[in-house]
């Protein structure tokens, strides 16, 4: 239109048009909305245990009960070895990242659908939704971590210097949950089946991860394929950093990390492509 002629000097702050390329990830806007990300995480944390009798204690009760069951079933009944550390500590060190991961994965998968009221009424980068859902359970992990320290004190287990690498393994766990969550949360918008299938996937995933047993029990020839599961590296890393068990293979970790970055990118691309129809389909 000709009347816009005088406007050419000013740059539009927003241009609205159909999205074309696959790789317009617009990650900058995620950064611009970081305050909202913070509030979404804060909301998740604040509301998780509202109106429960023992409140935030659930955060530690769940992995503790799991640990007791594992100790009884795997250690006492099945006589599973535990890499030379007391089995309860051995199991809890793995349950720490695993509880986080399963929590984050299930929250992330349902996140976009449960945020339907936001998605249909307000604009913000939709990536914030699964991102907040995967980040919020880190707070839970922190509390469980304190319990683990008590357990270690009780069983006289001293952490190695590898403790400083723990943030790296936490990051890997977050990336794993996020990568899968990006796919499942977007898919869930169109197919609610995802909600039913995720608990099952999480359960199978746990058995192919060394939560209840050490990696050393996996036959040598399967070890390579087994390690494709990024949670193997995460759990091994946690055990090594906290309990000083055998360190994970650095080469394997690097491959794992790279593969994760790739999956995370692919998840983001998929999410962004699906995102356009969220408000119309949800």
């Amino acid at each position: 239109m000709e009347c816009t002629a005088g406007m050419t000097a000013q740059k539009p702050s927003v241009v609205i048009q159909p999205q074309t390329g696959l790789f317009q990830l617009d990650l900058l806007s995620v950064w611009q909305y970081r305050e909202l990300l913070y509030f979404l995480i804060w909301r998740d944390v604040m509301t998780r245990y509202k109106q429960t009798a023992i409140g935030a204690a659930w955060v530690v009760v769940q992995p503790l009960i799991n640990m007791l069951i594992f100790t009884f079933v795997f250690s006492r009944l099945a006589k599973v070895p535990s890499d030379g550390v007391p089995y309860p500590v051995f199991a809890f060190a793995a349950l720490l990242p695993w509880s986080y991961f399963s929590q984050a994965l299930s929250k992330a998968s349902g996140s976009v659908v449960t945020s339907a009221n936001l998605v249909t009424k307000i604009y913000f980068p939709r990536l914030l939704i699964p991102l907040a859902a995967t980040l919020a359970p880190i707070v839970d992990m922190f509390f469980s971590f304190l319990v683990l320290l008590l357990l270690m004190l009780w069983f006289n287990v001293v952490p190695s210097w590898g403790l400083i690498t723990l943030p790296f393994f936490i990051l890997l766990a977050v990336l794993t949950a996020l990568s899968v969550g990006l796919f499942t949360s977007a898919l869930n918008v169109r197919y609610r089946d995802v909600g039913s299938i995720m608990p099952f996937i999480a359960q199978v995933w746990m058995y192919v991860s060394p939560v209840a047993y050490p990696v050393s029990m996996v036959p040598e020839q399967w070890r390579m394929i087994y390690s494709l599961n990024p949670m193997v590296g995460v759990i091994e890393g946690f055990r090594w950093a906290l309990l000083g068990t055998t360190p994970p293979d650095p080469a394997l970790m690097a491959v794992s990390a790279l593969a994760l970055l790739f999956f995370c990118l692919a998840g983001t691309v998929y999410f962004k492509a699906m995102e356009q129809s969220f408000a119309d389909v949800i």
Partner: protein
Amino acid sequence: MSNIAIHADQLSKRYTVATAKYRHDTLADQLADSVKSVFRRLRPNATENRTFWALKDVSFEVREGELVGIIGHNGAGKSTLLKVLSRITQPSSGRAQIYGRVGSLLEVGTGFHPELSGRENIYLNGAVIGMKKEEIRRQFDAIVDFSEVGRFLDMPVKRYSSGMYVRLAFAVAAHLEPEILLVDEVLAVGDIAFQKKCLGKIGSVADGGRTVIFISHNMTAINSLCNRVLWVDNGQIIDDGPATQVVSRYLAKATDDGELSEETWDRADEGPGTDTVRLKRVRVQRLDGDQSEPLTMETPFKIEIEYWNLVADARLHITIHLYTPEGIVAFTTGCQNSQPLPAGLLRSTGYIPGDLLNSGIHRFVVLVVKDSSSVLFTHESQVPINILDVRQREGSYGKEPGVVQPRLVWTTELLDFSPDSSCQSEYSPYLSMQAA
């Protein structure tokens, strides 16, 4: 001329009916559907039938500081347009450029969490609608004041009454200070007093030089707030101009559709009545101007009753009971003639002055009375009297209460000077004015 705030160029939004159908779909349905679609592909037109355009080639410009109303029927595409402009959904084609920070209010209380307290929700909701934390902190007291729920600030909002909830939610929204504000019909909730407060706030946003786009079905509000109105119908802008003009054209169209302005009975024995009197025609007419123009509160009009008097020298009185939209009789009026009427087709006309009735769809009942005492028959007229409120008023945006809204003479006079001499000079000793 001020700068452009929004420039929309041929925005279109296509929905496939199938997309709507996928809602809460399952993979099993999807598989079944894929099988069906194999057959569907054999029919070339099939996919075209399943799409509809919620918006089709919508182009317009809004300048900085304009307060633009969007009106139209439900499903006309108003909300879709707002959703596209606020980036909730993407256009299928076309392009829009927005110059400035956009805030959109498609709903009050988006993101409110019932378990969180009022205080916490102010922060959460503020962040959701696009306020910075610092901004919320700065405005916090103002928000609480506006909401009038200060005492309950630390109570979870699930324990709030719906009125308190809405007030708090709107209070947050009202303190959003974007350069461009997009507002959907969010004010259909809450009590009248609070609605007025909110509309006043929107008005002051625009006075502050910011741009507002406002969807409403409240024509009074649109008229009072907006300088310009876009009328959206069938996904297209079919009218664009000064608020009062577009609103009255829109309302005229709305009254045209399916509403009759008269009842007639062709044959003398068809109409309602008795052996002695039978109605021929009942109609409502403006006293002057184009009959296709709508009736507004100011318009004088007449009700004409044509009837066959089949018995010479009957003493008949036509009486009308006029009902307000609420079903209350606003008044009864009847012709006063005491002369006997000749046999034949007669017409009695009642004249209703302007500035008398309140707005809304009024109905009336015609009574034919004989000898001032016995009601021969009553006829509930199907002709609606739709009185529109298109007055432009300051600070008032809704229907005033009252069975009628007469315009009366008012005077105000100064009886004594104030002991505080400072304000003396402002007033002349005697003021007289007619209240609007």
